[in-house]
């Protein structure tokens, strides 16, 4: 049960950076069609991420990933964020993700990139 490590379950039950910023400058919503996971990213950024929140619902993996990612990108530049890839996300999660669940793990990162205008992210 490598996926359900303590820190993942803890963040699922008690997420961080959950909510919505009133004066958000960027936002995007994305869902995972196979399972109904849903993430909305709300952030304030000019060059750097000044503040960020997420809202949504879904499985432990998608929701814990959103907490971890939003915490990680605070203060990072948009360029730095655009360079983050799947391997970086898995490293941040610190767990082995089963192939069938990779979409759950990547949802927050894809939503974040989409909110910053990444055209490569598919809806």
């Amino acid at each position, binding site marked *: *049960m490598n*996926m*359900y490590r303590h820190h993942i*379950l803890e963040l699922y039950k008690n997420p961080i950076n959950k909510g919505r910023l009133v004066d958000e400058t960027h936002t995007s919503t994305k869902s995972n069609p*196979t*399972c*109904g*996971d*849903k993430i909305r990213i709300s952030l304030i950024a000019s060059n750097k991420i000044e503040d960020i929140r997420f809202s949504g*619902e*879904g*499985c*432990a*993996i998608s929701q814990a990933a959103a907490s971890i990612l939003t915490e990680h990108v605070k203060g990072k530049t948009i360029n730095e964020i655009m360079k983050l890839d799947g391997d970086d996300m898995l490293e941040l999660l610190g767990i082995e993700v*089963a192939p*069938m*669940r990779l979409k*759950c793990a990547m949802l927050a990162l894809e939503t974040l990139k989409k909110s910053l205008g990444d055209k490569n992210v598919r809806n």
Partner: protein
Amino acid sequence: MIRMHFPIINKEFSYLDNAATTQKPSQVIDAIKNYYEEHNANIDRGLYELSERASILFANARKTVEHFVNAERVIFTKNATEALNLVAYGLMKNLRKGDNIVTTVLEHHSNYLPWKILSEEKKVEFRVAGLKNEKLDEETFLSLIDKKTKVVTITYVSNSIGVKNNLTKLIPLIKKKSNAKIVVDATQAVSHFRVDMRELQADYLAFSGHKMYGPTGIGVLACTVKSLEELPKLFYGGGMVNSVTEKGIEYATDIKAFEAGTPNIAGAIGLAAAIDFIKRTGFVTIEENDSQLVSYAINEMNKIKGLRILGTNQVSTIGFVIESIHPHDLATILDSEKVAIRAGHHCAQPLINSLGLSATARISFGIYNNKEDIDRLILGLKKAIEVFA
């Protein structure tokens, strides 16, 4: 022992996703292998003995299917989705503004989206009956049907929550209120109890081979002679014409006009073998196994705190949720305990949303499932609750 007939089934593993696809008995696998090894040729055109043999096997497969659901005609498709789209495109062609179509919120997307999208295009009203006490609200459903209803399309058994619609009661009542064409999605029904098209008075009936112990890539659109005549041709090509000259085209008649190109011959033969398997097993045995498993599972699941079973009077599929565990997490943990279940919206999002949920877990039984499978499931569910405690 029925389990012996299924090479993939073993003691170490519980396959509880039969509503998605069933496993295949040796009889079906052998029939396909035997066809390719001994009888393979294109049908209805080769002027040699081998082609004649293949043609006879294919024609016999069609007869087996016709007899199985007591249909006047059977068109082979690639699956139930294609069959339902074929009817939807065919019937919608003649609809006018002001007409309406009636369906239910229990439908799989394959019997929902074609009608919904074509309704929008045709400016035809798309009426969807909801649930009452987690089964079809029959009163509302019937109240939606009027003289302008041109199609009523309804599932026999819900793929997500296993509820069976009482079609033998409902269809005569529909017929009293309108001349609508009756389309039945029998995908989750045909391998669990006897389906008789004439008795049902359905105009069209669709199902997939792979959910009834047959191979993938073969499905069925069964219909009456009259309802077949009302379908326009959709695909053009080989096999569906008698002659093509500069002066004009003479089309093949009857079902052949709907099966352009070389059909899935091996698939049809495999499907016929699956029907033989079902007949040999017998619906008495199948229904007894289903009902024992459903009542045992529900009884055991109800002992688990925070578990909610969806729907009622399940045939062979049980939808459920567990408080504070997402169905996907549940499925992953059960997988590590060697239990395969389905999680998500089961291609029936309108239904899942109408239950106030975004995803559910689902177990569904086949003829090889037994009480040990359910015991393993229950252990897995307890493990998941422990992990998330």
